């Protein structure tokens, strides 16, 4: 009951936290997919670069997020705030995205690849005419996993002043306001679950 009253009194605050969060997540996701897309194409032309990048990003992925935020702050152009948070989220996502993109593109039936190559497709044509359209599913799975983990990790970004749902939790902790903390948790979990469910539904539509 108290929770609902809190929300009625502070709906502006909650909505702003939610919309800040969604914004941060979407920007991070778009940049992540763009970067991973470029790196995947490089990896398709230079296999070793792909192996190397996947390895590097698997290490980044294993660093706890708070530590990675802390590590990034002193770097030039970073500091406290949303940009640093987005940079961290983009770095985090690379492992999940690259792994799914690269294994997806390489997983196309070798007979189909041979037929395409044998007909005189260049490597680039092979990628965009054959490999990508036949890997929509793994590509989409990678994006879904990245999105859901970004929603969660972005909560921690409040510690470095990026705002969003995490801010409800951090301020709640500082001021001992349980309602704030609880609402932070509810919004974060709700956003994650709904997004995931929606994307799983879309995923089923892809052959």
């Amino acid at each position, binding site marked *: 009951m108290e929770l609902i009253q809190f929300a009625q009194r502070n709906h502006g605050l909650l909505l702003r936290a939610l919309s800040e969060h969604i914004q941060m997540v979407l920007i991070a996701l778009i940049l992540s997919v763009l970067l991973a897309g470029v790196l995947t194409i490089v990896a398709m032309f230079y296999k070793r670069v792909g192996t190397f990048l996947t390895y590097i990003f698997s290490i980044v992925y294993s660093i706890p997020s708070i530590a990675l935020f802390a590590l990034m702050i002193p770097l030039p152009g970073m500091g406290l705030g949303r940009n640093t948070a987005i940079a961290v989220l983009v770095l985090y996502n690379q492992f999940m995205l690259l792994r799914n993109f690269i294994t997806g593109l390489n997983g196309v039936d070798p*007979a*189909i690849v041979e*037929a*395409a*190559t*044998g*007909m*005189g*497709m260049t490597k680039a044509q092979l990628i965009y005419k054959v490999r990508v*359209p036949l890997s929509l599913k793994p590509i989409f799975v990678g994006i879904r996993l990245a999105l859901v983990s970004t929603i969660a990790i972005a909560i921690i970004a409040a510690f470095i002043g990026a705002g969003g749902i995490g801010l409800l939790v951090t301020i709640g902790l500082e001021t001992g306001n349980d309602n704030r903390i609880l609402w932070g948790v509810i919004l974060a979990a709700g956003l994650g679950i709904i997004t995931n469910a929606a994307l799983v539904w879309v995923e089923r539509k892809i052959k």
Partner: protein
Amino acid sequence: MMPSTTVAIEYQHVCKRFNGANYNAVNDVDLRIYEGEFITILGSSGSGKTTLLKMTNRLLDPDSGDIILFGENIRDVDPVLVRRRIGYAIQQVGLFPHMTIAENIATVPKLLKWDKMRIDDRVRELTVLVGLEPDEFLTRYPAQLSGGQQQRVGLARALAIDPKIMLLDEPFGAIDAINRLNLQDELKRIHGGLKKTFLFVTHDINEALKLGTRVIVMNEGRVCQFDTPENIVKNPTDGFVESLIRSCREQERFW
């Protein structure tokens, strides 16, 4: 018997060994094929037929030896250009599952940027040629076709730009006897006698003898005999060819 004196394909002591193998998949193949020939290739499983075809359009490169197409050493030509001059129907068919039959057949004309009208006409023409009804099949996807129908689409796709050299790796493997006879006649007609050079792999000895102007018999990477069908039957040069012919005769005895 030789339709031409222009050498279309020349294999010069071509050898290929795959990584980790202790034998040559193709072993010292050395022969000349003239423009306009319809060469059929016979040989047991694993004898190097597919490997030989794949080296001809640079899907594989030989470890030693050279392959010359119309006087040009293909080692010196961009593989993409070599492949666009050659039609290739692969053994596993390999249709693109995300494209319709029409789009599959139009693949190479699109790569070569033909205009749309010309592509559409050509696609319909080819569909009829391989014995499929255009209105029924062109908008379907490969998964909606039987194995034999898919093979015919594979053949149409390889023929799309009417290339001077065609590599056909068991294109009729999944096709029933009656349709096979029709397609054999059709293919012979497409070959048309003089201008095109076909390399046609088959396990069916009768098919090889019927279609081939000359027949290559391969065993363990080597060419055992390369001769006209008549000579192959009359004077088999070694035990392998002899046993091949004998096995075929024995089959016919059941009639």
